């Protein structure tokens, strides 16, 4: 998908108007086109999500540029996590969820029949809002993904056949943990159960676990919500660093954080609409939409 036909085609607002009525009049007026240089890694078009009869996302369209950090901000319950989960089709796992629209990864539609979900999720990694390490050792948590994908072979058979990848595993575990700023804390307790870590450590472990699979895109749902300022700073550094090779989409409630780390920001507001999307600097300094300005300055939640 080229830049010019990015998200906000002229026809877009009109369509929104027909689907959702009065309040969108304002949206259209405030609407702005975001144009970026480079390729779109993820292209979302007209994404509607319903949980039962409740509509959680309303016709969302946005393009995520490659090798950059995209922040999603908005009040609680506005559908940020829902949107994130649509990008690697984790919402398919919610029974009541119904999803309409299109998401393209590298110009390939992911919402069609015959998409290999396993392959898709290998390429789009995810860190959940709640830390959810497996009840296994720290080492096994990290090497779980690569091992299941056949990149590591540490089983009994491999050992007997002399194809043991233990060193490679140790290497991979260390690299992932270092990137997630956890290595120093767990270096000498890699065989301890991951559930014995603190909440913040668990969250960083989950980041490390996602990195170990080496995806193209990393989705993070409030990765720093349970962390102290020092660990948060480390995670922010990590995110910025990751953006050199990866495409990062990160949900955050912390606006300073969004302003610090992201290249572009999407603002969702209650009801599941995308109100404004653009360069982070521009969104925070000079938003087009009055509602976004109110939200950012704290007048509106």
């Amino acid at each position: 998908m080229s830049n010019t036909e990015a998200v906000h085609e002229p026809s877009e607002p009109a369509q929104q108007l027909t689907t959702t009525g009065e309040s969108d009049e304002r949206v259209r007026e405030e609407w702005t086109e975001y144009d970026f240089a480079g390729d779109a890694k993820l292209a979302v078009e007209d994404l509607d999500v319903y949980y039962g009869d409740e509509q959680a996302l309303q016709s969302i369209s946005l393009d995520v540029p490659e090798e950059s950090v995209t922040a999603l901000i908005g009040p609680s319950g506005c559908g940020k996590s829902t949107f994130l989960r649509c990008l690697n089709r984790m919402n398919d796992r919610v029974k009541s969820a119904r999803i309409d629209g299109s998401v393209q990864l590298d110009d390939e539609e992911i919402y069609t029949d015959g998409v290999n979900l396993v392959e898709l999720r290998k390429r789009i990694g995810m860190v959940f809002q709640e830390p959810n390490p497996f009840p296994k050792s720290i080492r096994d948590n990290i090497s779980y993904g690569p091992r299941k994908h056949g990149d590591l072979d540490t089983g009994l058979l491999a050992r007997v056949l002399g194809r043991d990848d233990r060193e490679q595993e140790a290497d991979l575990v260390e690299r992932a943990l270092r990137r997630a700023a956890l290595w120093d804390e767990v270096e000498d307790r890699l065989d301890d159960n991951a559930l014995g870590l603190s909440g913040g450590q668990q969250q960083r472990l989950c980041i490390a676990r996602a990195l170990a699979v080496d995806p193209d895109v990393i989705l993070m749902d409030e990765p720093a919500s349970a962390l102290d300022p020092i660990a948060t700073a480390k995670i922010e550094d990590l995110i910025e660093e990751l953006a050199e090779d990866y495409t990062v989409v990160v949900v955050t409630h912390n606006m300073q954080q969004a302003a610090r780390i992201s290249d572009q920001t999407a603002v969702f507001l209650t009801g599941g609409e995308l109100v404004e999307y653009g360069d982070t600097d521009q969104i925070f300094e000079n938003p087009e939409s009055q509602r976004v300005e109110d939200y950012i300055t704290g007048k509106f939640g």
Partner: protein
Amino acid sequence: MSSVTRNRLVAGDSTTSVLVARGVLAASALAFFASWLVLFQWVDETALVAGVHVLKLLGVALVAAGVGLTVVGVGSRLEYFESTPSSSAGLPVGFVFGLLWAVLGGLVATRLLGNALAMWLPVAAGFGIVGLLVSVLPREDVGSTLPVAAILVLLGGYVVVGGINAGWTWSPSWSSAVFPGSELVPLLVVFGALLSAWSAAKAREGFGAEGRQSGAYYLVGSVVFAMLGVLALLVAFIVKNGLETMLTRTSLTGGHLTLPFVGSVPWAEFPFLMNQTGGLFVEVPGVLPAVMGTLWLVFGAVLFAVPLGIGAAVFLTEYAERGRFTQVVEVATNGLWSTPSIVFGLFGLAFLVPRISGGNSIFVGQLVLGFMLLPLVLITSREAILAVPDEHRDASAALGVTKWETIRSVVLPAAMPGTITGVILGVGRIAGETAPLLLVFGGSPYPSSYPNVLGSFQFSTQPPFVTNDALLSPASALPYQLYSTITAGVFPKEIFTNTEFGWGTALVLLCVVLGLYAIGVGSRLYFRRKLHHE
């Protein structure tokens, strides 16, 4: 009993009441244990202790406890002791006390009015209502002590004045039961001691919320104690009766063990455990064939039921859509688990035996016990799998891991302790199962050789490629052995009677089952360790 020390907000004289309450607790405990001694006939009911009849002493203890409770309760009501009672002991306590009083009233009326059938009812009802009111209406300190104290003093006093003594019996006209005083008195005392200890436990903490907590702890504690007591009694009884048989001609160095290169070395000898049951040259008949039979049965049943049960549970929880079908399967498995074992046995006899071995055999026994084990394994692993949080599944899916790999590497390990619990329970049941074994498994009650399953495999190049005669022959198992021994006429060897041999077998069976439990609990601990940080 806990000894709680804490700083009261208001300093006052609470030490006296605490001391009295402790005294009541001590008297109750003494009376309680003494009564059990009498009940078990370890102390003769006519014995004299310090020149007084034992039963009278028990009565004195009850009266003393009753007086002590009265002192604490009334003293607290008159604000002589520091306490924090609520305004009432509460309706539940009232109903219990009312019921006790009603029973007491009924007994008194029957005694005094000479079994006149119609008259005891109004008296009992009147007592009951009084008991209810006396416990509910006054403040808690009086309401939860005086009704108890009254019962204790009445009962104890009646015993002390000789109203009931060792030679006394009560045989109600409407029943053929006879209650001799030698049993009735200790029973009443046990019961009274429990009551007074509850009341004293409340009083010791000054009533109110803390008193109720103390009372509740005491109740929970005594229930646990009672349960352990019953268990210990059972085990002790079996050990007492079976130990002598089991240790017959045992010696630590009497036997020989032939080692390669070294030759014969002294070795511990356990004839009862290591000998065959029958045979010409067996001096001390043993239970080795039955032990081996039981172990093979359990092994085969587990081997059969565990993979099937877990597989079905995985299918039902992870793959099948929840709906009519899974509901039917759930109801069916629950029903299967409660099906009487003899029905399984009959099925084995009518269906499996003719098709597989043509007669009783170990293999059919394993299958039948496996069928019995299957539903429990299925039910418990289904629960365990359902209890694995969805977050783990999501986390795994988000890493691009397939569903089957997720089940294998995340869900099943997390569900393992629960599954093992089910297997332990099930093995406990099937290891002691007798009824189906009578129909499909048992052979000679005094076998002269143990089933040599491992040595009987025969391989061939033609179908079915492998056969095992030992598996297709009948054998003996411990519960089966026990049953056939005690129902048989005379024991073939002089050295034991049927009963002696039976008790020995029972003890070995108990040990085998406990051993299997230990293995199960050990493996469950191992998996728990892996799952949790400990």
